[in-house]
């Protein structure tokens, strides 16, 4: 088992922990505002580590309940989208049941909390800290674009089934960021570029630019794993509860929401990632996040 000893050259996680740690230190102020946000920060860091524990536990058959690439050098679990594609390509009902059961079980309990508390790509977006959609024109466009992630999710399986290829994975920006780039960092002279290298890297740049310009832009518009979990927000046990008797309609919750949800009225929105920022900012403690 590798031991850190601050020997970055020998550490299998160095390619990832250094940039993320620098980013986390830079944004610590945003999390230090409340105990809940501190807990969320600890959770995001912990899941970033847990997602990359293959050097401890090997490659397991469990499936990530957030978006992370199984080709990442230390990935311990399987990519949900990769499993969906394989289920379609190999006509494997058991894989589909396993994926559906995993996502449904976690989402029935936590809703989309995995996006806000566990997903490393969500963490990266929190670090990048994009802005909210401000003028009406952009808000309208943002609202329409939110349907795109559902379209992407619905298209993945049929396209994989028809073409027999991992059509989404071939151009997946999450794979590009967490697998292709680390592989090149770990062995810069060990590879030639494949057919989809340029499209994949283009999408990586696109994802980073989107997340830098728009807060949680990837989650809002493009993430097919978030789309899988979103409908469960309506019925999950973990919910945002609003006490309208206490609410003074100050608008702070809506102003801080990274997903631009119309709070406090739309507290069961499919877009909510359960980050709890609205809970932290409420001056009269009218909003709570808990199991119902």
């Amino acid at each position: 088992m590798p031991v850190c000893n601050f020997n970055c050259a020998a550490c299998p996680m160095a390619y990832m922990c250094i940039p993320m740690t620098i980013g986390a230190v830079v944004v610590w102020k945003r999390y230090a505002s409340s105990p809940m946000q501190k807990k969320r920060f600890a959770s995001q860091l912990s899941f970033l580590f847990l997602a990359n524990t293959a050097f401890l536990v090997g490659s397991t058959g469990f499936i990530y309940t957030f978006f992370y690439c199984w080709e990442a050098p230390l990935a311990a679990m399987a990519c949900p989208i990769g499993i969906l594609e394989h289920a379609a390509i190999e006509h494997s009902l058991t894989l589909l049941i396993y994926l559906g059961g995993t996502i449904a079980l976690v989402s029935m309990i936590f809703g989309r909390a995995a996006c806000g508390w566990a997903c490393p790509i969500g963490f990266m977006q929190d670090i990048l800290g994009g802005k909210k959609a401000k003028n009406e024109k952009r808000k309208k466009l943002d609202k329409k674009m939110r349907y795109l992630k559902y379209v992407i999710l619905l298209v993945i399986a049929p396209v994989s089934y028809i073409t027999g290829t991992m059509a989404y994975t071939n151009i997946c920006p999450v794979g590009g960021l967490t697998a292709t780039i680390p592989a090149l960092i770990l062995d810069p002279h060990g590879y030639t570029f494949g057919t989809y290298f340029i499209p994949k890297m283009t999408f990586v740049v696109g994802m980073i630019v989107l997340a830098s310009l728009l807060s949680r832009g990837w989650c809002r518009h493009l993430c097919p794993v978030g789309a899988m979990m979103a409908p469960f927000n309506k019925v999950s046990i973990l919910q945002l509860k609003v006490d309208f008797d206490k609410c003074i309609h100050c608008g702070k919750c809506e102003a801080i929401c990274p997903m631009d949800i119309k709070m406090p009225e739309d507290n069961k929105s499919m877009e909510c990632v359960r980050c709890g920022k609205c809970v932290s900012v409420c001056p009269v403690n009218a909003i709570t996040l808990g199991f119902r």
Partner: protein
Amino acid sequence: MRRIRTLQAAGIIIALAFFTGGWYTAYEKSANLNESTCLGCIALNPIVESFSGFWTEYPDGYSREGTVPHPQWAVDELNKGRVVMLFFWYHGCEPCSRQWNDMSRAGIVNGSEGSGKMAGVYAENVTLFTIDIINSERKDAIKIYTPKGDIGTPTTAILTMKNGSIMWYAFQGPADGSGGRPSIETLENILDDAVKIRGDS
């Protein structure tokens, strides 16, 4: 409120049943998929040792040394006087499909990746094993032929025999002529060499 609670309980029970059933039937397959490296998925192909003659032991650049533990089912074919070509692939692997189609067009193989055979002049002398690295019983053989003992597709190995000694060459990534990997024409030449060596001995 009671209706929501009932709905939640039913949802969790159904989800738990799906998860348990799926875990029981598909966990191993998921683990196999996770363990393998889809080179097409990361859009990178490994740079390999280019062909300059067949090896008898592990060459430099492999994490192992000494005698190669060739699988018995391959050795059996060699003992019958044949050359063996191993093609490790799996469903959805874009470079695997590309190499297979290129080999098909060049008249080296025919049929599909799952049940293909050697074609043309090679059919008489070469036995092809196309091995699905997720579902085949022979899947573990790939670890013998990859430099790090990993599972990365496509991987191609050619085995021949001279005076009772097994000679071999293997490469990971598609046969596209870059990064030290042979082009399809070079692959044909390697097969011709292997057949000639086997015929001479």
